[in-house]
Each structure stands twice: as C-alpha cells, then as structure tokens.
C-alpha cells in the first residue's frame, strides 16, 4: 500500500478531468448519433448510446448526396496525398542533395510563402480556377491542394540527414539519376513519407473554407461542406445532423487509432498540427 499523497491526488484528478474534457465532445456526438432522435434531443443528455443505427439510415436515405460527399472527400484527399508523397520527395531530394543554378533562390521562394496565410491566395485562386473552367469540380480542390509546399520543406530536411555514400555507390553501379532516387533515396524516406502522407490526407479531408468557396452544387460537396449544410437543410431533425457529423469524423478517428504512432511521430517532425 502506498501512502496517501494529496499532491498526487490533485495531479491525477487534473489528468483525468482534462482527459474527460478532451474526449467528451466527440463522445457525446457519437452517443447522440447512435441513439434514435427524431426532432429535438431530450433535455436530459444521452450519455449512454443505444447503439441504434436508425439516425444513420435516415441520414443515408434522407440526404441525397451523403455518399457522394464521402467519395468526393476520399478522392480529393487520396489524389493530393499521392501527388505529395511522390513529387515532394522528388523535389526534396533535388533541393537537399543537388547543386544547380537557382536552387537556393527557388527554395527561398518556397520557404518565404510558408508564413503567408492561405487566405491571401483565395481571391486570385478563385479567378484562376474559374478561368480554367474548373469551379465546382473536384479539380478545384485537387490542383491547389498539390501546391502546398510544406512537404518539400519536410522532405528536404529529412533527406539532408541521409548519407551520400549510398547514392554514389548506386551511381557507380550504373544507376540513372531517377534510379538513384527510386531505389536508394525513396526507400530510406519511409518514416518522413508516412508523416507527410498522414498530414496531407488529414488536412485535405478536414479542409473547409476553400471547398466552401469553390464548390457550388450539393452533389459536388466534400464531407465538411455537406455536413455544415445539414443544419440548414434538416433544421429540426437533429438525429440526421448528429449522425452526419459523427460519420464525417469517424474515418479520421479510426485512422488515428490505427496509426497513432505515426501521427505522434509526424507531430514531432513538425508535419502535423492540431
């Protein structure tokens, strides 16, 4: 038996209370979503879920486009992530290991935009995307999504720490420049690529302001935009709103629980904010 220690009691209660505060909003969202609610929720909050999927059924039948929104969000997040893990690694490699005219100028150009609020770009971006005839299509999200430069910066920092001897050995063995990248550099970058992939996927899945601006028709919405509009559309049917929000949050939560280690590693590498 350990001696009763009041200081430790305070510490533990603080940790437990903050854990509850941290998890409660999401928990309550899910208990509400899993309890049949038509109309207004009860005045006594539902704290134990009924594990009924009635709200979800009404969500999928009542909203015409919920599955479209999911597919749209997935498409955008996947496409942008694929782009970044390949091309950011490629560019990061060039900036980290190659000396070529203008390399520093170009890299500083990239770096200097990291601090600029993304909102600055939205008005011209809207005009450009409109000129390209891509407003209200998923391209309107994918193309600007590929322009995020954080990954180049992250991959450059990571690749700089890799020894150059392996590359030289591969070159002597007759590897082409792309071969060196593909067979030597890329495999060594896996931890950084994992962090970058998670960061990019989550960021694009959760993105809201630009999609609200660029998308117009309900069937083209991404999940965040669609869910934000549920409140206007189903004002009084809270069951649909709860389940819509819960189902939009669920994939990222599952994703996090599965790849927790990589998430927290990514935060440490500076890749993921939250």
């Amino acid at each position, binding site marked *: 038996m350990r001696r009763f220690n009041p200081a430790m009691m305070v*510490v533990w209660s603080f940790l437990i209370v903050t854990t509850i505060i941290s998890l409660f909003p999401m928990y309550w969202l899910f208990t509400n979503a899993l309890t049949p609610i038509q109309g207004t929720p009860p005045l006594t909050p539902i704290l134990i879920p009924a594990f009924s999927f009635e709200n979800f059924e009404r969500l999928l039948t009542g909203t015409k486009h919920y599955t479209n929104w999911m597919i749209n969000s997935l498409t955008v997040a996947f496409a942008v992530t694929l782009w970044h893990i390949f091309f950011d690694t490629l560019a990061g490699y060039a900036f980290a290991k190659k000396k070529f005219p203008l390399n520093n100028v170009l890299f500083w150009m990239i770096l200097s935009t990291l601090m600029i609020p993304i909102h600055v770009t939205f008005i011209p971006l809207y005009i450009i995307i409109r000129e390209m005839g891509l407003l209200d299509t998923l391209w309107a999200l994918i193309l600007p999504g590929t322009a995020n430069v954080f990954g180049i910066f992250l991959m450059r920092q990571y690749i700089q720490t890799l020894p150059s001897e392996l590359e030289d050995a591969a070159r002597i063995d007759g590897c082409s420049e792309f071969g060196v990248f593909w067979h030597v550099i890329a495999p060594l970058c896996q931890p950084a690529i994992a962090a970058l992939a998670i960061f990019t996927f989550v960021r694009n899945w959760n993105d809201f302001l630009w999609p609200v601006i660029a998308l117009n028709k309900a069937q083209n919405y991404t999940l965040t935009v669609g869910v934000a509009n549920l409140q206007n559309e189903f004002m009084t049917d809270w069951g649909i709103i709860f389940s819509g929000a819960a189902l939009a949050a669920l994939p990222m939560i599952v994703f996090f629980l599965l790849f927790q280690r990589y998430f927290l590693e990514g935060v440490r590498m500076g890749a993921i*904010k939250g």
Partner: protein
Amino acid sequence: MRRFFQKHGWSYLFILPSMTTFIVFVFIPVVWAFIISFQKYSLRSGGRWMDPFYANYETAFTQFGGIFITAIQNTVVYSFFTVTANIFLGLILSSLIQPLSHSLRTFFRAAYYLPAVTSALIIGMTWSFIYNAQWGFANYLLRLLGLPLVRWISDPDIALASVTASAILTIPATAVVLYSAAMGSIPTEYYEAAELDGANGIQKWWHITVPLIKSTTLYLVVLYSIASFEVFERIYIMVPSGVGNSTQTIVTQIYNNGFKDLNFGVGAAQAFVLFVMIAIIAAFQFRFLQSDVEY
C-alpha cells in the same frame, strides 16, 4: 548548353512538377492578390486601379461603421486568451505526464490528441451542440446546479467568450506532444546535479525544465498565434449569423467581402492586413522568446 542539361537536367526535372503547381496556385495568387488589393476587380471586366491607390484599404477599415476594426479586436481577444491558455495547459499537462510510465504517457497523449484529428468544423459543430440553449450539455449542467440558463452562442454579449472557451477547452494536443518530446531530451544529469544542491520538484521544473524547453515554447506560441489569428470554421459553424458583429473575425470579414459581396479588392486588402499582422506578431515573439540556451 548540352552539358548544362546533362549535368542539371535531372535536377530541374525533379523539381518541375512541384514548382509548377506552387507557382500557378500559390506564388502567382499571392502576387496577384497584392495587385488586386489596389484595384477594383470584377469577374467580367477585370481590374481597374483605384484612386487613391490605397482606397480599398481605407474602405476595409471604414465600411459598415468600422466592422473590420471590431473584427480585429475580436480576433486579438480570442487569440490572446486561446494562445495563453493553450501554452499553459500544454506545458502543465506534458510536465504532469512526463514522470508516468511509458504506456500511461502514450495513453494520455493519445487521449489529448484524438479530437485534433477531426476537422475544426466538426469540433465547432459539436461545441455548438454543447452550447445549444435548449438541450445543450452546458445548460444541462447549469440546470443541475440550479443556475439560470445562458444563451451561450446567441447572446451577443457572451458569444465570443463561449467560442473562446471552446477553443481553450480543446486540449492543445500539439503542445503536449512537442513539450513531451522536448522534455524527454533534457539530459538527466541536470536534474541529478540540482538534486545534490537540494532542489525540490517544483524548483527543478521551474529552473531547469522550463528554461530548457524555451525554443519549443517559441515555436508553439508562433504556431498557435497564427492558427488563432486565422480562426474561421469554429465561428462560421457556431455563430453563423455573427450575432450582431460580436463574433466577426478577420477571416470571416475576408470571406464576407471576398465571397459573399464579391468585393475582391477589399477582401484582398483585408487578407494582406492579416498577413502583416501575423508577420509583426511572429517577429515580436521571436524577439522576446528567442532561446539563448544551448545544451
């Protein structure tokens, strides 16, 4: 020429795709936004220079009785409380979980981090449920305590405070993770030496831990300041009407001007005001928090 391409061709090829999208969708828009901020721009007839050239900036601050100034004040108030609370809470939580066993530390870090993976929009929406005047959890607690109910996000006098409270009560997950990592890398000899000198736990924390993680503090302060100056989703979803102007922020103003009123010039001008404010704040923070400790 041929030799130049033989030597550098690959390098340029490697950066070409990234540089292309960067230039088209970031670099050109930034420069163009700066130009538009001095223009009257319409989708049909393009841009015409304003006279005087700063007219959009003047309009930005004076339109609708100076609502943008209110928005800046709201943003500053929101940011000040959010950033301060986030940093303190992050520091305290990571200090408290540091002595725990590895698996407990992992558990708490995950519990604090979990909500951060969902979008700001969904978190804001969930808080709007908690704040619902009729069936929300916040008023349920007040009812339990026999206190008068509050219209958390529809009362203009307290809507901003409610939104700020929701941001403060969202555990600063990044701070906990980064502080934990920083604390883990402090050499244990420092603490052993302090123990020999008879320092207690709190003295060790204040004189060793806190100064040695100062560079992490700087990074987090800048990170959280930028994020809270750009607050949008939370407000958009919790207080769609803005209840009077009590919860207008800089980005909601940019959104309203740029994409509701299609007043591109003024929206662009306000975006640059945001940019300049963020740059100034970051510069100040670097000056005052720059770490001179190396170990």
